[in-house]
């Protein structure tokens, strides 16, 4: 097969998302450009979590930490007058990668429920750190002075331009992620998830590969955070709140973990759901909570799992 099914899906999905701004312009609903951009940003975060959760079996309940680090990596330089986007986003990726390296090195020494609690606890630590940064607004957060600057035609203050930048990053990330999970490296972390004692018995030492995957996921989460700060033009420690981590995890499960497009669908559906529910009632979470419980109990393979009926051989 010259063109894989995944390539086709990616092409079609990318095209559909690319059509959102013209359609929004035609129908005079600019709001949708904003909404879909937000969805794609969370899709990047969700896909990055799925790399370690769905493919690597690492139940990290602290993924929002990297969103926050990425956001502050844009906000803090901007506060001091440094608005170069390459610098800010580069900082976002490097800072979150380093954080993931430290958190991963400690938490991957453990497993199971310890791992869940520890990743949650470290994210909470960073949340409190954010609150204690009085210079940068403490728990109120701060306004982003200006969106990241890249020069040339890439002006993020143009909603359309920003939209296509995010779309390009998402597509690029999906392509890279798709290669990664099928590569030798990807096979190692998937094998370790499938059966760790067996993986060790044939000679894999899973720790270093898991840690590498953890760092990759963290840095991608950081980039999503940099985008999110530009999206909201405001950043607060709330980006790192544990409910945010739960939300990203929910996106992965809702869409279908261990798949590449599942988290994208999950992000889109969850944010749509929040949008619709919050228009109906201020107490939309009382509906969302039980939905989450039901998804876990009855639709473990997510929306993608509902589409794919038969398990595949080969």
């Amino acid at each position, binding site marked *: 097969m010259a063109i894989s099914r995944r390539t086709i899906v990616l092409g079609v999905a990318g095209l559909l998302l690319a059509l959102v701004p013209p359609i929004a312009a035609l129908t005079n609903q600019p709001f949708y450009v904003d909404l879909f951009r937000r969805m794609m940003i969370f899709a990047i975060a969700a896909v990055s979590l799925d790399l370690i959760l769905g493919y690597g079996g690492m139940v990290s309940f602290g993924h929002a930490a990297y969103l926050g680090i990425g956001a502050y990596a844009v906000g803090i330089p901007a506060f001091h007058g440094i608005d170069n986007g390459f610098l800010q986003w580069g900082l976002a990726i490097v800072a979150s990668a380093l954080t993931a390296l430290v958190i991963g090195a*400690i938490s991957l020494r453990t497993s199971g429920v310890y791992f869940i609690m520890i990743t949650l606890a470290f994210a*909470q630590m960073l949340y409190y*750190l954010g609150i204690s940064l009085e210079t940068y607004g403490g728990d109120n957060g701060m306004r982003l002075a200006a969106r990241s600057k890249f020069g040339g035609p890439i002006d993020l203050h143009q909603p359309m331009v920003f939209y296509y930048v995010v779309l390009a990053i998402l597509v690029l990330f999906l392509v890279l992620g798709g290669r990664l999970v099928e590569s030798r490296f990807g096979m190692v972390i998937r094998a370790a998830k499938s059966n760790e004692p067996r993986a060790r018995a044939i000679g894999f030492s899973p720790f270093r590969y898991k840690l590498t995957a953890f760092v990759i996921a963290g840095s991608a989460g950081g980039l999503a955070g940099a985008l999110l700060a530009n999206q909201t033009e405001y950043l607060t420690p709330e980006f790192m709140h544990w409910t945010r981590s739960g939300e990203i995890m929910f996106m992965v*499960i809702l869409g279908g973990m261990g798949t590449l497009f599942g988290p994208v669908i999950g992000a889109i559906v969850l944010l749509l759901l929040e949008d619709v529910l919050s228009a109906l009632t201020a107490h939309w979470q009382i509906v969302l909570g039980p939905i989450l419980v039901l998804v876990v109990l009855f639709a*473990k393979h997510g929306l993608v799992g509902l589409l794919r009926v038969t398990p595949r051989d080969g």
Partner: protein
Amino acid sequence: MTVTVALVLEQTLNGLQYGVMLFLMAAGLTLVFGIMNFVNLAHGSLYMVGAYLATAFAAWSGSFVLGAALALPATLLVGIVVEVVALRTLYERDHLDQVLATFGLILFFNELIAIIWGRAAIYTSLPPFLGGHIRVLPGVPYPAYRAGIILVGVTVAVLLWVLVTRTRLGMRIRAGASNRTMVSALGVNIRLLYTLVFGLGAALAGLAGAMAGPIYSVQPGMGEAILIQVFVVIVIGGIGSIRGAMVGAIVVGMADTLGRAFLKPMLATVISPPAADKAGPALASMLIYLLMAAVLFFRPEGLFPARGRS
């Protein structure tokens, strides 16, 4: 701020008091985990429910003590209902499912509370006989209410110790915490045991919540802030171990309280006071997590790993 002996003593007692609250939460959570292999994020919701029910019952009956006393069985009931309706089916699922489903429950409970009582924090006033101070040392007064919490907590810890080490139920609980298959081999009614243990955990969380009312703000989401600290307690102490929960709770309670009180003045002796002003609170808020990281580095299974668990 000058650091005096009286202040150190007062803050140490505060740390003990906070540790006691953490222990009440951690004991239930660690038992539920040890026996059912179940991660219950919604444990914090029971704490919140306990706090709100105590406040409501106190307002209704006009007596703080009666309110707290009523909140206890009520939270136990809520816990049992939640266990039977929603959680029971999750015991056989993997940890990811448990975490997500109980996360869903948290969203539900927080919103339910917000619908009934609103989102704003509510405060309970203390009855006069608990509002005063006692003298722990000459010249060192201490709030009677906080002293009461310590007393209640220590009493509960002793009762729990007696229950776990001296009764048949306790024997089963201990057996279950270290070896789950053995409990079923003993022919114990597992479902009932699970429900009892969960109810006990819920009641302890409710007790902590009820006592928290007058000193912390009662608001939706209050359960999760403490829950994550309880996780730190359990990770430090070792999952499934009551003794670990006890030691972990005191360590975390002390470290957090003393860190918040004294890190800033201590830092100010080393670095410049304005820098200490900034770094002190930041470091204090991170202290228990750094402590957890340090413990994990040397003892990945915590200080008191439950026996029989690999």
